[in-house]
């Protein structure tokens, strides 16, 4: 029970400032990276017209997200943004699933990861907006429908980052807290595997998809 909300941190004092590094999150993120890279290597090695299972899996993921990107944006932009969308989904999916392995923690349980990804999506969406519409048309949108609505539009835009990152963080952290408390109460009998399957696999998959789709939708709203 004492582990509730505890984070292992490495604090380095540097010229009077303190640099805080969440070691566990970084290690877990690197585990996800390594697994994804190995998966990518195996999926693209020995490409064949008669694909092996792992190649089929890779092609399935890539083509599904290419199709989704093409539906939301147009064909030309889909070529540009679908690798991002696909990579984002695969990273989030593995991150959310990592917690079901004992002694490993979901990197998305730490607010820094979703917030970083949310900021990334926000920056990309606005970059895409400026690039496709030009800065003048982009800036003009903030003064719609009346010029004095500008501060509210700005806050509304910024609140998107809050909502997208807290949604993922709240779900994953909430799931892990519920698993921790229930395991503690039932002495880890019967219920925890079912809870892990629900919060880890099921909710993790849905939230990874929702995060990816929202990033894509934010891009498409800015572009059009």
């Amino acid at each position, binding site marked *: 029970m004492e582990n509730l909300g505890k984070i292992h941190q490495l604090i380095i004092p540097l010229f009077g400032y303190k640099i805080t590094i969440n070691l566990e999150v970084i290690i877990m993120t690197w585990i996800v990276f390594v697994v994804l890279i190995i998966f990518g290597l195996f999926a693209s090695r020995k490409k064949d017209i008669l694909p092996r299972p792992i190649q089929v899996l890779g092609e399935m993921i890539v083509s599904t997200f290419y199709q989704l990107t093409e539906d939301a944006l147009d064909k030309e932009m889909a070529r540009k943004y679908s690798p991002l969308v696909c990579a984002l989904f695969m990273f989030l999916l593995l991150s959310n699933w990592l917690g079901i392995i004992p002694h490993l923690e979901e990197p998305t349980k730490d607010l820094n990861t979703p917030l970083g990804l949310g900021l990334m999506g926000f920056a990309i969406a606005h970059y895409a907006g400026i690039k496709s519409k030009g800065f003048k048309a982009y800036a003009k949108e903030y003064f719609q429908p009346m010029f004095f609505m500008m501060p509210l539009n700005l806050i*509304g835009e910024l609140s998107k980052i809050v909502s997208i990152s807290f949604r993922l963080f*709240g*779900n994953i952290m*909430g799931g892990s807290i*519920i698993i921790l408390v229930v395991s503690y*109460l039932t002495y880890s009998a019967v219920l925890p595997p079912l809870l892990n399957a629900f919060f880890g696999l099921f909710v993790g998959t*849905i939230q990874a998809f*929702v995060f990816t*789709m929202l990033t894509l939708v934010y891009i498409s709203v800015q572009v059009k």
Partner: protein
Amino acid sequence: MDFDVETWVKLAAYTGGGIAMGFGAIGAAIGEGYTAAQANLALSTNVKNSGSIVKNMLVGQAVAESASIFALVVAILLLFIDVPVPSLLKAASLLAAGISMGFGAIGAGIGSGIPGGDACLGIARKPEMAGRFTTTMLIGSAVCQTPAIFAMVVALILMFMNFGQGSLHLNWAAHLGAGICMGFGAIGSGIGSGFPGGKACLGMAEQPEASPRLMTTMLIGSAVCQTPAIFAMVVALILMFMKFGNAPLHPTWAALFGAGISTGLAAIGSGVGGGMAAGASCEGIARNPETVGKVTTIMLVGQAVSQTPAIFGLLVSFILIFKTFPESYTLSAAMALLGAGICMGFGGIGPGIGTGMTAESAVRWVARNVEHAGDLMRTMLVGQAVSQSTAIYAMVISLVLIFVV
């Protein structure tokens, strides 16, 4: 009259028991009434199969009843609980347990009546599929019960966990806040997850071959609309198990209360709204099973946007819990923090339901008009952004109350 500690504990236990059963009876009664009403409607269209309709109605009502049975269990436990070491903290915990279970049972009761009623209508249309309707109804209602089970878990922890004696400092406020948060936070998700269950039953009657897809969509939709209840449970657990150290009593107690109210109330609207979108997606897939991919995507996006008020509530709660406030004995500092919670909590109810309505109609029309899915989604997002702005105003005022006033 002499009020010693034991009297306070008894007082809190009886009040909590009364709240648990009194409020806990509301939802199940409404839900069962809805089931019976739909069963009557079903009987009038298909009198020949009255036997299986009545049987299904009774099973459905029994499931809908379980929310109030949870409340009954907690109420009886509260009436006869034997507190080994009475303390004022325990008194607060018992009252909070009653609040959590009583309000937490409302939504689940109402919600789990909806699949029951709609399954009766389905049996009237397709009597040969009675078994499948009953199964779908049972799964749909069981999913609706999840928020009530969360509320019961929180209530049982509050009643039986030993939080240490004498550490009254601030923990009483945290426990009451946790009870309020979980109790109110379970209402919306409970009601909301009934909609997809009901619409899935109706959809199976219309399009039996799409049953597996409808079942999957129902499960995904109702799992997503449980998110606000999960947020409420997280805030409740953090409030219960947090160590407050040397935080000053004034005005931190108001901040902890406010944290509970903020997420608890804001979760109501988001839960209902997410359920409406999920219900429409089941309806849409029954109408046109080929559109399942687009309908599910737009449902998830719509639900995600309608959850935003609950996320704002969560943010305000986290700030209220984790920020340390300077000691101040004036009432205005405490009221500002309490006001921040109330503002965000009530401010989040409307936008959650409103954006849910937008998502509902967008999802429904995508199924009929799939080639215009892109336009529908864009209109939905723009409309939701406007109705969301009231939640943003509430958040701005809450943050001003916390940081400026």
